[in-house]
């Protein structure tokens, strides 16, 4: 049996990262849980080779060559600071900006970099950066939001989807909010939109957008917003928003849904109470106690009992499944292993329903059970079993060696083999059904009489088949 502390480390790394390899587990086991959390929250300087050197060798990963999803995936696979990437993914799912409309991946890459830098700071600062982010401004048409004629799109979504949630403000608040954001625009917008129409600008890619405040189209008059009055600018509105309890509750519920357990889809939050109201209260309290500091709320979350007790209560998103599997298989985890095949591999996440940089709408992806459709499940099972079943992959080779070292005798029982293989891919609680299904693979006489106690020769082929089944199981769909 796996010890409780080991199980907890695996759980932490599943949620705050993209799973854990057996070697990483060894290293983490030498630390206390609290120290592990601190390390995740305060990563040391990235050990990545710098981007300009990466792009010299792998020009296709550059934003000008549509390489952003693959580049981001490479960062997630190879990072030593997985929580940083996980938080970027978290915000990407909430402040969901899609290249489908933007058609400018460089600008979207800048937004993701912004999430990396500011994603665990004070929420007020993050919202200001978001409201000045050119990808977001274009995505929600704020360049068309003028004092003479309001475009409410951003004013509405910042309240409905990015901070407070429906039911906590009026239609008038939306209008006043939109007025405060008039003039928050992009530089050279006429020239840029002209360029966007001339879509044939290869080979150098599209020019990146920049934020520009245009006082001439900003509405300087008095506004009444959420019970306060004044000649508010966007900054004032954000300060007011961030002091609302509704905002704290909304962000807390998002964090709970992303890190702790699957909630119902966001549009139902207004009418459906949270799964664990006490947990949300704890996070809301932390939000105010630490003055809207996201990192502090995360610390409270990751060290809470409700987090530690939430194992296997989430369905892995396609990105979590793909990145987690590739980290285990040891593919693309340093720049010498990157080649053009990474594009096809990352596209598998699209096929499963989550295209990085292209959420289906500003509402982001619907998570939890909605990740699982029959077509997507076929892709998930085939993807994981192909990558973990391939002994040419470094990570798989390594897992094989470790299992050989772990199971030293020539023969062990099938039960022991199943447990060892399950643990190697992060499954610590293998259900009886799954174990029986794997037993089914070995249909010799003895299996039928002795079940899991049957002795079996520990050979690479046998281990690989069991590994394939572990990553094809229902347990592997969860984390």
């Amino acid at each position: 049996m796996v010890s409780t502390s080991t199980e907890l480390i695996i759980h932490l790394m599943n949620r705050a990262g993209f799973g854990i390899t057996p070697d990483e587990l060894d290293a983490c086991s030498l630390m206390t849980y609290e120290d592990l959390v601190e390390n995740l929250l305060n990563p040391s300087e990235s050990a990545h080779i710098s981007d300009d050197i990466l792009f010299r060798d792998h020009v296709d990963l550059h934003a000008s060559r549509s390489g952003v999803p693959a580049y981001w995936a490479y960062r997630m696979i190879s990072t030593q600071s997985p929580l940083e990437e996980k938080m970027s993914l978290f915000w990407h799912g909430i402040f969901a900006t899609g290249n489908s409309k933007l058609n400018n991946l460089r600008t979207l890459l800048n937004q993701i970099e912004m999430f990396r830098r500011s994603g665990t700071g004070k929420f007020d600062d993050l919202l200001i950066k978001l409201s000045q982010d050119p990808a977001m401004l274009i995505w929600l048409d704020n360049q068309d939001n003028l004092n003479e004629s309001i475009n409410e799109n951003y004013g509405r979504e910042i309240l409905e989807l990015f901070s407070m949630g429906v039911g906590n403000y009026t239609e008038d608040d939306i209008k006043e909010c939109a007025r405060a954001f008039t003039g928050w625009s992009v530089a050279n917008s006429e020239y840029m939109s002209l360029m966007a129409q001339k879509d044939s600008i290869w080979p150098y890619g599209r020019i990146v957008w920049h934020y520009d405040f245009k006082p001439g189209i900003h509405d300087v008059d008095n506004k009444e917003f959420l019970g306060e009055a004044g000649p508010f600018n966007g900054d004032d509105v954000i300060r007011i928003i961030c002091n609302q309890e509704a905002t704290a509750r909304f962000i807390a519920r998002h964090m709970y849904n992303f890190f702790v357990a699957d909630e119902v889809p966001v549009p139902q939050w207004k009418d459906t109470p949270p799964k664990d109201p006490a947990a949300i209260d704890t996070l809301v309290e932390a939000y105010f106690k630490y003055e809207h500091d996201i990192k502090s709320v995360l610390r409270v979350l990751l060290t809470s009992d409700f987090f530690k007790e939430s194992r296997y209560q989430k369905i892995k998103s396609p990105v979590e499944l793909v990145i987690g599997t590739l980290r285990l298989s040891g593919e693309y985890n340093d720049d010498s292993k990157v080649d053009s095949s990474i594009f096809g591999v990352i596209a598998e996440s699209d096929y499963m329903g989550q295209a990085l940089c292209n959420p289906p709408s500003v509402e982001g992806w619907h998570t939890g059970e909605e990740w699982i459709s029959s077509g997507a499940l076929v892709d998930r099972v085939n993807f994981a079993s192909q990558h973990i079943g391939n002994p040419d992959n470094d990570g798989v080779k390594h897992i094989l060696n470790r299992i050989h070292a772990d199971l030293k005798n020539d023969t062990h029982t099938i039960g022991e083999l199943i447990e060892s293989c399950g643990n190697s891919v992060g499954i610590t609680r293998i259900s009886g059904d799954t174990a029986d299904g794997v037993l089914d693979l070995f249909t010799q006489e003895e299996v039928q009489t002795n079940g899991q106690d049957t002795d079996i020769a520990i050979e690479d082929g046998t281990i690989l088949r069991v590994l394939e089944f572990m990553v094809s199981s229902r347990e592997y769909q969860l984390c």
Partner: protein
Amino acid sequence: MVAEVKPRSLVIVQLSGGNDALNTVIPYGDGLYYDWRKEVRIEQDRVLKINNHLGFNPALRSIKNLWDNEKVAVINGVGYPEPNRSHFRSIDIWNTGESVGIGESGWLGRALREIDPNGENPIAGVNFGKGLPRALSCKGVPVASVSDLENYGLFPDIQGERSRDLALSAFSQIYGSAMAHDNVAQFIGQTGIDALKGADILRTAPAQYSSAVEYANNPIAQSMKSIAQVLTADIGTRVFYTQHGSFDTHAAELDTHTKLWTETSDAIGDFMEDMKEHNLEDDVLVLVWSEFGRRIKDNSAGTDHGSGGTAFVIGGTVNGGLYGDYPSLKETDQLEGDLHFNNDFRSIYSTIAERWLGVDPSIVSNGYFEQHEFISPLAYN
């Protein structure tokens, strides 16, 4: 006695990348065409004439044959207000039927939900290719996505029939057991069993199929063959989806466009021949579309993204002919250098929904749109 009504099937062929409409149905009778197109053009004597103004690109010979038999509706000037020239966005607009906001579900997904509201048929909609086009996505609608029909399903890499059977039986044991106290695990289990069932049914199709038609060895022809195999097996699939490309001909257009259209047109011609052989010609409708057309003026050897496209609807019961006016090439009539659309693509969806699939057109096409006469209204007896 009530005659048994055969279910009607819909086949979507997406020309991805933006097909050059101007060089597909060519206004060879308009001198302006040759003025704008100095290089990327088809000379008059090579055009397959429709009338004294329009004609097909010679690569569309097979479609021209179907046209001569009055089985092709050509819809000119297809588009939507405020055309978007980004591939992704425009494909999304076509897929969801939503051109202003961001659509939640696909038009074919909505049609399938109307046809099979409880999602009982795991293969009512099948995509041939990778992933799931958004057109087919809709909550609660199971859809299969097949890249290789003969090897479709779980564990395609496991070699040997016996090994694969063992693996599938183990999978069904793992996913089939109740795990009674856990709803999520049960849901995943049910989905796994659906996937397995769908794959089992689909995989039987090729063995039942025989045909005198020989499809070419290129992706679109092979996809159309797979569609024919599933369709003739009569296993309950109503909507088929596939795509071919890339029609994104910024450069060297004449060669690429000819190759892609020869492949597509021949594949459709062979498919219709196959349907005829199986007496299904009147039960199948093929819609061919592309996310946008291309610029009127060429950029030397290629063309850039434009608007205003051409769509084809092909089938045994189609009222063949030209639908919609061909957009004018006069500079004053152009839309920022593009053909001006005069037919909303959702009119096509609306027509197909009501007159072919027999479902509520406003749900499928996302609103009310004037219908075309390329299919006669369904007769309700």
